[in-house]
């Protein structure tokens, strides 16, 4: 009888210990799963945050670099443009520094045939008049007369509101032959050739 009771007691305690072990094993498994899930979540969050940040940083960097490249290109183009400008300025100055008779002949040759069909008034640039002096209208009148003896144009002594070259006022229209205008009008057409020569290797 005592042996049987001891067996029962041992059995009750053994069952309890087995259940306790099972409870602890379940807890250990659950704890492991919690930690494993936390590690996965932490890793995923870190990777996602870094990937997002890397993408944003790359985009921002590329945008800034595009701006820098654009500014650098603009600087190079501005340098090229300034150097071409210098050639245009140089040639304009060279033309106006021709000997007065030669310059007057050059200006007379600028006048188109259709402008010379009517009586007209020729107005000279204020820069030319100031530089060459009061004799310049006479030089231009003589040059016009040599070139187109039939044309009765009058050369005004009053300067025009432009620097060099001339304006021809006829009854029908005004021909703007100011050097700065002529050069500016042809700038686009001519600067390809000028830039090609200027920057040739």
């Amino acid at each position, binding site marked *: *009888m*005592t042996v049987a*009771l001891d067996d*029962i*007691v041992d059995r*009750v*305690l053994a*069952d*309890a*210990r087995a*259940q*306790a072990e099972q*409870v*602890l094993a*379940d*807890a250990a498994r659950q*704890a492991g799963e*919690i*930690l494993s899930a*936390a590690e996965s*979540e*932490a890793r995923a*969050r*870190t990777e996602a*945050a*870094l990937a997002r*940040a890397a993408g944003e*940083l*790359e985009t921002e*960097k590329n945008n*800034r*670099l595009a701006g*820098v490249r654009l500014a*650098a*290109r603009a*600087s*190079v183009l501005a*340098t*090229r443009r300034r*150097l071409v400008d210098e*050639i*245009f300025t*140089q*040639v304009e100055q*060279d*033309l106006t520094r021709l000997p007065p008779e030669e310059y007057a002949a050059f200006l007379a*040759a*600028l*006048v*188109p*045939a259709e402008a010379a069909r009517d009586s007209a008034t020729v107005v000279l640039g204020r820069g030319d008049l100031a530089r060459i002096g009061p004799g310049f209208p006479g030089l231009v009148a003589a040059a016009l007369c040599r070139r187109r003896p039939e044309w009765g144009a009058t050369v005004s002594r009053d300067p025009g509101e432009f620097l060099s070259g001339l304006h021809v006022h006829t009854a029908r229209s005004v021909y703007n032959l100011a050097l700065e205008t*002529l050069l500016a009008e*042809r700038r686009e057409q*001519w600067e390809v*050739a*000028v830039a090609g*020569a*200027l*920057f*040739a290797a």
Partner: protein
Amino acid sequence: MSVLETVRKVQEAEAEAETILAAARVKADEEVARSRREAARLVEAAGDDAREQLERLRELSRTEEEVSIAGIESAARAEMAEVRARAARNRAAATAILAGLAARLAGEGG
């Protein structure tokens, strides 16, 4: 042994069994709670680690950008120097070409 004694012994065994189980449950609850605290600490630590990695990433990106900018600006300076050198060499030829074109203006006058 009396029946009463037997019942008492069994009840004592069952009480001890309950104690064993209760202790196991407490320990299990503690284990799970500890793992939850550790999990929270892991996630928080990961956040700190991500911030540190992000800072390193930013620093690296800044350095790369500075190197790229220096390269772009250096290349532009070199190109401008080359452009100026060529212009200096070819100025007379370019001026002659433009002067020739300008001289033809007179021809256009007819």
